[in-house]
């Protein structure tokens, strides 16, 4: 795992480029504490901060081909690199290292962009062709690894994290009200959104080329839900699930350093830990977050799994004060507004994991998207059949949704029925499944003054993907989750950014393409869709404690923002004071103050989920403004910086 950065066609003098690229890498050195490397030409430079995981000795970057034409900076892992290497060797490629980086370079040189669909992993890379003066950027199919780009005058910039652009002389950050309104409306950035004007994220499953002819973006992996051949019955389906997950975990255990597992207390991470133990030949080190608040805490279940598997388990207990103290740093690493505080404990957990000497962890992320674990999918199914089922069935299913929300239950079922009645028809083309959620997002979007339609971007995204038309309502819901919340929050703010803030590489066995494809052939084929992940649970019944197998989905949550922000007058100053709000003229200051006053003055039971979420949006927008637009992040970063050693420098200035 690593961080990459670079700039080409820059007007900076060539003698300034080594310092500039080192400064850029320095801002993201947390992603790769094992060594920096860069290559520099007359008007370009690119480099890598490396976290050494595979081929610790000879895998230094940037990696060039023997002729010095191609230079690769690479972040991530291609888990099937050994198989690809064998394919390439069969074609006569001779390798100099045992690192997957060289496989990526050779694969591109051999197959061109056709190599991308062959890659099974989480990756982002930049490859510069000196002869053609062409830069290629590419990103994995599920958006596990980040890659941002921007124009700066005639120059083209790229980096694993936007904060690297803080090191480019003259580059200024500016928050984009229209993008912010969209992010608040959907509670997550869309695939190419960043919240900052002039900076774009390369979407999942895409690659781009930049040369004298300009910039072109291409899609190499589209999200589809293939209807594979039906297994003969449940037993065969369960066996297929086990076999695919075993293969996926085996691939993700490939590492020259120890691999640990994050345990949440739920079935998904328990399955991953079980398979890691069985395939790896010994119990893995496991790590968990615990909370004092019983409504959020799953430490008892975590202990049950750890004891059952015999893992070396470490629990990090996180208090409100811990979350309050870490909030600005976690937001600085996330780089985008956040609607939940749950990424802050994950940020702290990765620090703890690093202190324990672990560099790579596996997690259960992706299982809920693949195997329909979210209540949203059940809600979608219920609403899509709203008029076809009897009142009793409707009420019974409604009362089983969202068990963590206090107002969902038999006592309020008539009111909830009234609400869902209002949303039982599709009003926004293609967005049926998420309509109610997005309607709630309208509340958050009210933070932004005159930003236009917060749903214009998501409508355009959906309209651009004609394949949605053939999908069932639940598949559309899945598609949207894969395209929005998964890469926009779960794999980034709460995943990659939280883990790599402390040099931890996170791998997700449930997001293996074969596992996702298998799940899509099984979903709703053996179930009625109202008992989440039933086949997955049954596939591992008997191998995990019954209490874990039969436990209902317990969403991972952390304390509401108000619970920790109220202990920090400096945070409240940011979102309440006239002088601070005046720095954010695109915010509706009146609404911001009313919201803050309500969230802080009422008992928690009187504050709705969307109000809590909007408050955290507000706080994170203000923090990001201070750190990026106000450039406080530069000072904070330099104050605490420990530069990794420079392990490779390739000077091509003046070279043909």
């Amino acid at each position, binding site marked *: 795992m690593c961080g990459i950065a670079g700039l080409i066609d820059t007007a900076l003098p060539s003698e300034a480029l080594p310092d500039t690229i080192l400064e850029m890498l320095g801002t993201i050195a947390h992603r790769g504490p094992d060594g920096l490397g860069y290559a520099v030409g007359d008007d370009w430079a690119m480099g890598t901060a490396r976290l050494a995981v595979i081929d610790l000795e000879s895998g230094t970057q940037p990696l060039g081909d023997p002729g010095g034409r191609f230079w690769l900076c690479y972040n991530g892992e291609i888990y099937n690199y050994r198989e690809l290497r064998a394919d390439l060797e069969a074609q006569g490629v001779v390798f100099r290292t045992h690192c997957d980086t060289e496989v990526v370079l050779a694969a591109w040189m051999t197959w061109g962009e056709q190599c991308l669909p062959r890659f099974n992993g989480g990756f982002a890379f930049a490859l510069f062709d000196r002869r053609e003066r062409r830069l290629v950027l590419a990103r994995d199919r599920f958006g596990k690894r980040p890659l941002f780009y921007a124009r700066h005058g005639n120059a083209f910039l790229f980096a694993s994290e936007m904060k690297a652009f803080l090191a480019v002389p003259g580059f200024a950050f500016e928050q984009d009200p229209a993008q912010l309104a969209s992010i608040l409306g959907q509670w997550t950035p869309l695939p190419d959104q960043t919240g900052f004007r002039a900076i774009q994220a390369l979407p999942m499953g895409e690659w781009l080329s930049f040369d004298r002819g300009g910039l072109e973006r291409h899609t190499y992996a589209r999200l589809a839900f293939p209807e594979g051949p039906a297994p003969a019955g449940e037993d065969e389906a369960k066996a297929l699930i086990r076999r695919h997950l075993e293969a996926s975990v085996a691939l993700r255990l490939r590492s020259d350093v120890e691999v640990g597992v994050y345990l949440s207390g739920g079935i998904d991470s328990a399955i991953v830990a079980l398979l890691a133990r069985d395939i790896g030949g010994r119990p893995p080190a496991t790590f968990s977050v615990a909370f004092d608040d019983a409504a959020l805490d799953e430490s008892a279940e975590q202990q049950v799994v750890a004891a059952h598997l015999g893992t070396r388990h470490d629990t990090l207990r996180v208090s409100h004060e811990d979350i309050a103290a870490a909030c600005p740093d976690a937001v600085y690493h996330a780089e985008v507004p956040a609607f939940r505080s749950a990424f802050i404990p994950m940020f702290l957990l990765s620090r703890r994991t690093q202190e324990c000497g672990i560099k790579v962890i596996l997690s259960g992320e992706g299982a809920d998207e693949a195997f329909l674990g979210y209540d949203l999918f059940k809600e979608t199914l219920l609403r899509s059949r709203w008029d076809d089922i009897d009142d009793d069935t409707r009420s019974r299913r409604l009362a089983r949704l969202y068990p963590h*929300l206090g*107002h*969902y239950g038999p006592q*309020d079922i*008539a*009111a*909830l*029925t*009234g*609400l869902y*009645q*209002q*949303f039982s028809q599709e*009003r926004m083309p293609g967005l049926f499944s998420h309509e*109610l959620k*997005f*309607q*709630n*997002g*309208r*509340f958050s979007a*009210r933070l932004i003054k005159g930003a236009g339609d917060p749903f214009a971007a998501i409508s355009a995204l959906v309209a651009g993907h004609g394949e949605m038309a053939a999908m069932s309502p639940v598949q559309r819901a899945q598609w949207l989750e894969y395209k929005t919340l998964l890469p926009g929050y779960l794999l980034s703010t709460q995943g990659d950014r939280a883990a790599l803030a402390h040099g931890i590489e996170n791998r997700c066995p449930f997001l293996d393409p074969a596992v996702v494809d298998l799940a899509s052939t099984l979903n709703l084929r053996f179930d009625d869709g109202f008992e989440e992940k039933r086949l997955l649970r049954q596939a591992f019944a008997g191998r995990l404690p019954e209490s874990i197998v039969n436990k209902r989905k317990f969403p991972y949550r952390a304390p509401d923002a108000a619970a920790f922000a109220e202990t920090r007058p400096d945070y409240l100053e940011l979102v309440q004071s006239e002088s601070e709000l005046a720095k954010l003229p695109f915010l509706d200051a009146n*609404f911001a103050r*009313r*919201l803050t006053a*309500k969230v802080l003055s009422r008992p928690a039971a*009187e504050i*709705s*989920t*969307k109000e809590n979420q909007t408050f955290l949006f507000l706080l994170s927008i203000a923090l990001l403004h201070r750190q990026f637009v106000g450039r406080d992040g530069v000072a904070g970063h330099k104050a605490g910086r420990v530069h990794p050693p420079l392990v490779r420098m390739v000077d091509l200035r003046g070279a043909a």
Partner: protein
Amino acid sequence: MDKIRAFIEDQFLVEFDESFPEGTNLFKEGVMDSFGYVQLCRFLEKEFAIAFTEAEMTGNVLVSLTQIRETVAQKVARRGEEPA
């Protein structure tokens, strides 16, 4: 009845005016979510000592301030006639 307007403005952080008239559909504008709708129903029942039937809660009678006012007024007027 201004209590209803005050409750909605306070609960949902909106202000009724020309740009947000009292006839606005609170569901469609994203003002009323599940939590808010449950709070509103509880408030009305307690404040005006009335009880909504399931048909009233699931119909379109509680979607705007105007309709809520009318419905509550009718129920209050009929209160003495309804069985306890």
